[in-house]
Every structure is written in structure tokens, then in C-alpha cells.
């Protein structure tokens, strides 16, 4: 359920049939990512779904087996340095480089590679996130390392932020502060953000678009409004043994039933779905929207009971 668009120039990030395989495991499968410029795009998927591989491919740290990726119209394979110059990247791993350096020295080191580095802003971010300037990087906790990574990603005010599980390892208070800083950052300079997370609800106020990766495939990609409008839970009354029509199976996401009552989450325009359910013999008692996280998670396989 991805939505290719030929008008690639309008997108901050666009991938075209991006595939990557590690041995037998298909990490990315014909991914057609479209991230509108200026949007906050939340990428959802279980561990191993391909989110980190996708980020590394955008950074030109991994070569795709097939397909291509563009960042602001630049091919990531052909213009790796120019692409990376426009990206603030927080990798999944909470390991900062150069453990022997102090945090302040590491920030100065990173600054040397970004002519646009804003030292005053870096100091502000470090203070706000509680990064201890004289502490050796090797002595930082995971959370502190993550905060340092966030400062390094934001301080050169890149046009694109690639955040791979950025809130992992942060305590709730720092999470809240980090999100507030991100919101401030976005308000100061319109920035495109692609952020992968297991905690979509935390980004509810920021997210514009949502993509869902499942087994390397981008199974859903749409605006937040579309997602919340089209992914709905339907309460049905149906005869014993009634099944969701096969033509809705492709989009029938989750279901639970008690006797003749049934609840299922389906994707599609409400009127169309309701009509098809009625035609199939079920009576629709009502439907309701889902929270953003629930709507996104509806595309993921249900956990085995």
C-alpha cells in the first residue's frame, strides 16, 4: 500500500524500488519511500523490519542491491558527501565515537565537518539535554550518549533529520525535553524529519506522515489525516461463521469476534467499506477512528496469543 509518485522533486526523500538483502534475509523489498519536504515522517515497524537499513542506505553507508534513493534530489550513491552534509543522523546504536574525548571535544570535532555548525545552538542543546561537557565520552551512560548524539545531529541545523529510535535509552523526563527541543527546532527552521520509533504516541503532536515497514516492505505510507480517516474499527453484526469478504482481506487488518458480534479494523474509505460489508451480509453497527499509534500498528501482524 505504498504510493509512488512521479513528482519526485517535491520530496525531501524518495526511494525507487530499493531492495537490500543480507544473505538470505531480505532487509528491504522494493521500498518506494516518499517523504514530503518539511514533514515529520514517522516510520513504524517491528525490530528487523528494515528501518535501520533504510536509514543507512539514505546515508550511503549501505549499497542497495537494486533501486536508488534520492535526498533533496541528490542521488545518495552518487553524491554521498553532499547528501550527508544535509542530514543530521542519530543511529540506532547508542555508541558515541572516540571514547577518549570529552563531550565538548567531540562536539568541536564534529563541528569541524559542518561549516553550518552553530556553536551557540550546540551549547544550548547540550545544556538543555544535560550533556556534561567535560565528561569523557567513554564514561557516558546510554542515555547520556543518546543525548550527545542528538546534539551532534541538530547543531548544524541540517535540512533533514534521520532519527533511528532516538528516544531509546532516554528516561521519560529527558524524552519529554528532547521532544520539546525537536519541536522548537522544527519551529525555528522548517526541517524534514524521518524518525523511526516504537513509541508513535510520543510523536502524535509532530507526525505529518506515517510509513509502516513490515519484513522489508513498505506496507503503508500516507499522511496522518489519511491514516486516521481510512483505518477504522468497524463493529459488525454478522451471521455465525461469517468471514470478512475476500476482497477486503487484503486490507482486513485485525478482527475479534464474540458470537454474532465482530470487531475488525479495516482500511479504506468508510463509505466504500461499509457498502461492501453490507453487500457481504454483515450489518455495520458503527465505526470509530483509532489513535495514530493504533492505526499504524494495525498494519503490523498481530502478536501470537
Amino acid at each position: 500500500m505504498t504510493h509512488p509518485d512521479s513528482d519526485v522533486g517535491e520530496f525531501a526523500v524518495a526511494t525507487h524500488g530499493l531492495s537490500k538483502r543480507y544473505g538470505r534475509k531480505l532487509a528491504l523489498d522494493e521500498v518506494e519511500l516518499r517523504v514530503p519536504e518539511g514533514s515529520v515522517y514517522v516510520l513504524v515497524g517491528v525490530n528487523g523490519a528494515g528501518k535501520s537499513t533504510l536509514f543507512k542506505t539514505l546515508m550511503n553507508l549501505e549499497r542497495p542491491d537494486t533501486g536508488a534513493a534520492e535526498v533533496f534530489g541528490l542521488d545518495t550513491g552518487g553524491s554521498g558527501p553532499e547528501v550527508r552534509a544535509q542530514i543530521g543522523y542519530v543511529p540506532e546504536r547508542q555508541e558515541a565515537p572516540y571514547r577518549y574525548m570529552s563531550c565538548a571535544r567531540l562536539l568541536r570535532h564534529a563541528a569541524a565537518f559542518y561549516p553550518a555548525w552553530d556553536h551557540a545552538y550546540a551549547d544550548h542543546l547540550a545544556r538543555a539535554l544535560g550533556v556534561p561537557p567535560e565528561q569523557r565520552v567513554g564514561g557516558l551512560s546510554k542515555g547520556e550518549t543518546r543525548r550527545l548524539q542528538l546534539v551532534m545531529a541538530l547543531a548544524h541545523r541540517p535540512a533533514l533529520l534521520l532519527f533511528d529510535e532516538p528516544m531509546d535509552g532516554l528516561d521519560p523526563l529527558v524524552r519529554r525535553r528532547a521532544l520539546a527541543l525537536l519541536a522548537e527546532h522544527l519551529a525555528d527552521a522548517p526541517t524534514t524529519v524521518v524518525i523511526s520509533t516504537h513509541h508513535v504516541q510520543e510523536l502524535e503532536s509532530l507526525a505529518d506522515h506515517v510509513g509502516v515497514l513490515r519484513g522489508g516492505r513498505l506496507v503503508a505510507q500516507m499522511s496522518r489525516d489519511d491514516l486516521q480517516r481510512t483505518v477504522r474499527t468497524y463493529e459488525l453484526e454478522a451471521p455465525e461463521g461469517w468471514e470478512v469478504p475476500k476482497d477486503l482481506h487484503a486490507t482486513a487488518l485485525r478482527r475479534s469476534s464474540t458470537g454474532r458480534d465482530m470487531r475488525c479494523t479495516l482500511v479504506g474509505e468508510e463509505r466504500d467499506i461499509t457498502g461492501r460489508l453490507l453487500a457481504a451480509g454483515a450489518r455495520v453497527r458503527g465505526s470509530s477512528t483509532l489513535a495514530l499509534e493504533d492505526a499504524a500498528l494495525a498494519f503490523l501482524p498481530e502478536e501470537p496469543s
Partner: protein
Amino acid sequence: MTIAPTIQTAERSVHGVRPQMPRPRDVLREHLHAIGYALRVPMLIAVALGVLATIILAIQIGSGDLDYNFLTQPSVLPGVIGALLPVAMWLREERFGPGFLWTLPVDRRRHALLKTLAGWLWLMGGVTLFVLSLLVLALVSGGGVLPVQTMTTLTDALRLSGPVNPAALQTVQWTPGALIWAVPFGSATALYLLASAIVLGIRYLLRWAIVLVFLLPIATGATHLISRLSGNEWLADMPARALVQLVEGRFGLEALLTLRTWSLDNRATLTTGERIHVWSSIPDLADWRTAALLWTVAGLLALWAAASRHREERRA
């Protein structure tokens, strides 16, 4: 359900705008700073040892026990440091994989070469201090910076295998040219390049070291077998001979490091029973120049190949 860009007229549309890139000289300067920072502890230890050595030598010079001539043996030390420096520089990096260095906005092959250049500049700075200190030592102690060496040589090197007739000995004067001052720089540079290539180009160093340890016996066994089957005895010791050439040959590693002053300087027993130093031939600076050139070119080629392993993943 095709998605439309939410901010079509973003205040900061970066399409078609060339991003600001770091200048190569800024990258080099930062790596110079970073390497200095990373190696500050070993450098402090080296300075402390240098001060200690100076004090000891000053005492010896003061008591007239030392008459130091600038010779090539100490250039083994810069060579060894040249070989170890890349290990200290690169093993802290995630050389393979999505390490921090490779996430920076610099062409990756160029970045690897710039960092290597920064390390080489530090090395040359250190070697310059080292050579200057030796030259000062030679001058202060009353020795020579280009000393004339009196050497005992043999007319026939083969006779070293048994007691030597004193009549077969001759005394020669060897005056090394100023090129001898370049030996520490050349040996350190060549070994630095080769070691950089190894560290930068080989992912699993230990695995390859183990392979090499087993390679010589396996190759020797194979050539022995082939020699026995073919009746060509010359083949039998070929791997060992090749290794000896690589180390002790005319243009081998020892020539690079010491002008072959280790292998040419032998202990011989005279027919009178006396044991003396006998040089099998005089060190040749022209040979050193060739060795340095060969090893440096090999190092540069290897370094280019190693850095190319990290090049940007360009598609056709």
C-alpha cells in the same frame, strides 16, 4: 491516496541548493588536532623518556664516556613507530561498517587519505625532533654528524664461514653522505604507509595474521613436494629465500631501516683466535634510496587500494 507534500512552499527548500561542504584543509586540520589529542598520553610518555635519556647522556658526555656519531641504527625506532602509529590511529575507529567517520560529509576514500596524511605529518614532526636530538647529541658529545667510519672488510665474503686469515682483511674509510639523515624519515614513511594500508584495508587483522603464520610452512611444504617430484632442487627453499630477500635483501626491509648495517656487520674469528667485527660490504646509500623508493611506492599503492575499500558506494 497519493500523498502530497505538506509544505510545498517550504521556507527552506533545499532542492538544487548545493550544501556547504567542509574544505579538505579544514578536515586535515581537524584530524591533526584529533590525532594529537588521541595520542597525547603516549606522546607525554615519549617526551618523559626523551628527557630521561637526555639526562643520562648528558651525564655520560660530562664524564667523557660518550663519543656519539650519527649513525643509522637508531632509525629503527622511527620505523617501528611509523608501523605502530596507524594501529593506534585506526583501531579506535569503526573502520568497516557505519562508523562515525564515514557518516561525516566527506568523500570516504579522501577522508581516509586525509586522516592518514594527518598521522604522517605528526610522524614526520616526531622524527624531525628525534633526528635533531641525535644530531645535537653527536655535536655536543664531540662526535660527528657525518662521521667517517673505519671499517674492516673482507676481500671475499664467503670466507666468513670459517676462521679468517688476517691477510684477507682490509680497512676502508666510509663517509656517509647527508642522505643518511633522510634514513629515519624514509623508513618511518614507508612503514607508516604499509601499516596504514594493512590496518585500513584488512577487516580481520588477527585472522590474516594467523593465515600468514601458517602460509610459510604450507608454501615450504608445497615447494618441497614439487621440487621432489620435478627434481628441481632450486624450488625447495624458494619461500624461505623469498622471505629472506624481503627482509635482508639488497632492497629489503633491513636495507630500508638500517642501510643493512645489521646484516653486513658480522662477528668473525681470525685464524689467530681473535674475534673481531668484519663488514661483509660497505653500506650503500644508493641502495637505501632505491629501497626507500620501492617500499614507499608499494606503500602508496597499497594505501590507495586500502582506502578504495571505503570509497563511496557509487552505482553505475
